[in-house]
């Protein structure tokens, strides 16, 4: 087996990294080594993250932002410390960062700002200064793309249903890139004076395509629209500076970037967060409460109702510390620069290995250019579920199905694909295992 085409100097020390992840030492399905290629769905967690969560519970567990005792003080400091760590990681300031349950909730927080502002204004109720940017009228338009995960599509369909706004979308070409220059479906045709929101992914969870965010954001801002970026597949895998992207909101999940489940992040430009009505309401998010009305806290507290998930936020802070501390094997790259180089080398190698197998068709860009590490494919004559079953039997764990991007699969005329996603603990040998397992599936189902 040749792995000569892998740029080894770009790789992380996978053996050393793997030692931090206890789950990677277990075996599966009859003693097979676990080859985990489903980090796009959720990543595994290093000891450092697990220890941080446990440390919070064993040392300073208390409800944050309440109470005046020592534990409450320490718990609040740890929670806000995590916010600062994550803000620094994104080139943001802590007050622009809202903790949510996951990325889906973060996107809903923004989508509900629109439907809530529209509903309140319809009844003449009070809204924060600047909230008119969130009030929609019938005929206003919301633009998404054909490659969105359901999490960045269905919430906008819901907003349209509640406000009378109209959903439009940018289409995807055969290679899996956004068709921005198409005269009928391109940027200038779809984003118009009627556009109020442009919601798009930074990196497709199916195709791996990295979208030209800056260009789309500039077009959207030229017509006064707000830009919401789904960064679930970008923040864990590449350096992301929220200021330089030129967008208004960024949403991502902690569990896809070594953090615990139950923690997500919404970054928003502060003047926008300030002008948004609340999403979930109740304790913690108020300023004053009377029996018939309330006023609300400033962001980010306005959007963090109830006792927050402190241990998970601290775990995510530890995950960010872990990512920042990574080094490429030759020591030349640090942190997310090392992560992106590692994944790029693996993606190039995976695309090459899979393209060499007869009867395997990659859905998405076949060259590792403006592309992340999600590699989806169809195997001629074998349904994705059956491919996944054979892979699983050999210890190779991938995702099968439509990956919560059903319209995109329809666009490519396939009901389901098999998807491998790579992360910091995967090496070239995992790509080899994947390729060998695909060939084994072809033999089992007698399609070659």
């Amino acid at each position, binding site marked *: 087996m040749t792995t000569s085409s892998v740029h080894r100097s770009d790789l992380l020390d996978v053996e050393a990294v793997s030692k931090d992840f206890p789950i990677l030492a277990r075996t599966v*399905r*009859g003693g097979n080594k676990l080859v985990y290629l489903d980090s796009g769905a959720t990543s595994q967690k290093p000891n450092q993250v697990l220890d941080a969560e446990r440390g919070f519970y064993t040392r300073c567990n208390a409800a944050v932002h309440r109470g005046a005792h020592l534990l409450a003080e320490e718990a609040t400091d740890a929670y806000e410390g995590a916010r600062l760590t994550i803000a620094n990681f994104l080139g943001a300031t802590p007050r622009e960062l809202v903790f949510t349950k996951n990325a889906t909730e973060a996107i809903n927080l923004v989508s509900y700002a629109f439907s809530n502002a529209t509903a309140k204004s319809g009844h003449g109720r009070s809204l924060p200064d600047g909230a008119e940017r969130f009030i929609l009228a019938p005929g206003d338009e919301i633009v998404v793309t054909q490659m969105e995960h359901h999490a960045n599509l269905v919430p906008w369909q819901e907003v349209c249903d509640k406000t009378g706004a109209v959903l439009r979308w940018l289409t995807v070409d055969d290679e899996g890139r956004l068709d921005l220059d198409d005269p009928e479906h391109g940027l200038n045709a779809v984003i118009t004076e009627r556009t109020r929101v442009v919601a798009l992914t930074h990196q497709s969870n199916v195709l791996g395509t990295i979208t030209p965010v800056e260009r789309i954001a500039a077009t959207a801002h030229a017509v006064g629209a707000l830009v919401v970026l789904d960064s679930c597949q970008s923040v864990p895998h590449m350096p992301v500076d929220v200021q330089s992207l030129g967008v208004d909101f960024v949403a991502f999940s902690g569990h896809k970037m070594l953090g615990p489940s139950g923690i997500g992040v919404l970054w928003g430009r502060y003047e926008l967060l300030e002008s948004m009505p609340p999403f979930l309401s109740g304790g913690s998010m108020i300023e004053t409460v009377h029996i018939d009305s309330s006023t609300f806290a400033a962001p980010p507290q306005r959007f963090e109702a109830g006792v927050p998930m402190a241990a998970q936020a601290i775990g995510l802070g530890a995950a960010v510390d872990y990512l920042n501390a990574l080094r490429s094997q030759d020591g030349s790259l640090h942190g997310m620069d090392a992560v992106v180089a590692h994944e790029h080398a693996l993606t190039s190698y995976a695309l090459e290995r899979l393209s060499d197998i007869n009867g395997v068709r990659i859905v998405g860009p076949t060259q590792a250019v403006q592309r992340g590490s999600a590699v989806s494919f169809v195997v001629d004559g074998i*349904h*994705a*579920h*059956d491919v996944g*079953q*054979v892979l699983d*039997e*050999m210890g190779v764990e991938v995702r*099968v*199905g*439509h990956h919560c991007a*059903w319209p995109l*699969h329809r666009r490519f005329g396939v*009901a*389901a694909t098999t998807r491998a996603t790579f992360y910091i603990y995967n090496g070239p040998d995992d790509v080899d295992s994947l390729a060998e397992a695909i060939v084994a599936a072809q033999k*089992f*189902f007698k399609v070659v």
Partner: protein
Amino acid sequence: MDLESLYQEIILDHYKNPRGRGLRDPFDAEVHHVNPTCGDEITLRVRLDGDRVADVSYDGQGCSISQASASVLFEQLTDHGVTDDLETADAFLALMQGRGQVEPDEDVLGDAVAFAGVAKYPARVKCALLSWMAWKDAVAQAAAGQAHEENS
């Protein structure tokens, strides 16, 4: 590998050579069921003749398990009494939801016993059940339609 116990020859044969596939007229009820986690889908028609299931016809797309199971269903549930067929369908449901602990009865299930191995893979049980749940739905609708006609 356990793959052979999951993908028994009977299943692969029904997958590659589906029996009774294609939608046919006349029919008393038509249903469309999907598996939302993977996008597999089936359209299934049932034709009743009194208390007999006169025909089951279907079309759809999906994995080997879901497609073979529709083909086996066609063989097992066509041209029998509705009551017997409902018993067969319930036995199949019990087998699939039995996590590998239910001993299948070949006299009741016929070729459908081949799906016993699927019950050990919880993620695939829905694939095997897709057409059978569609069939139950269609039979219920067809029977309700018949009762309505008799009353009117």
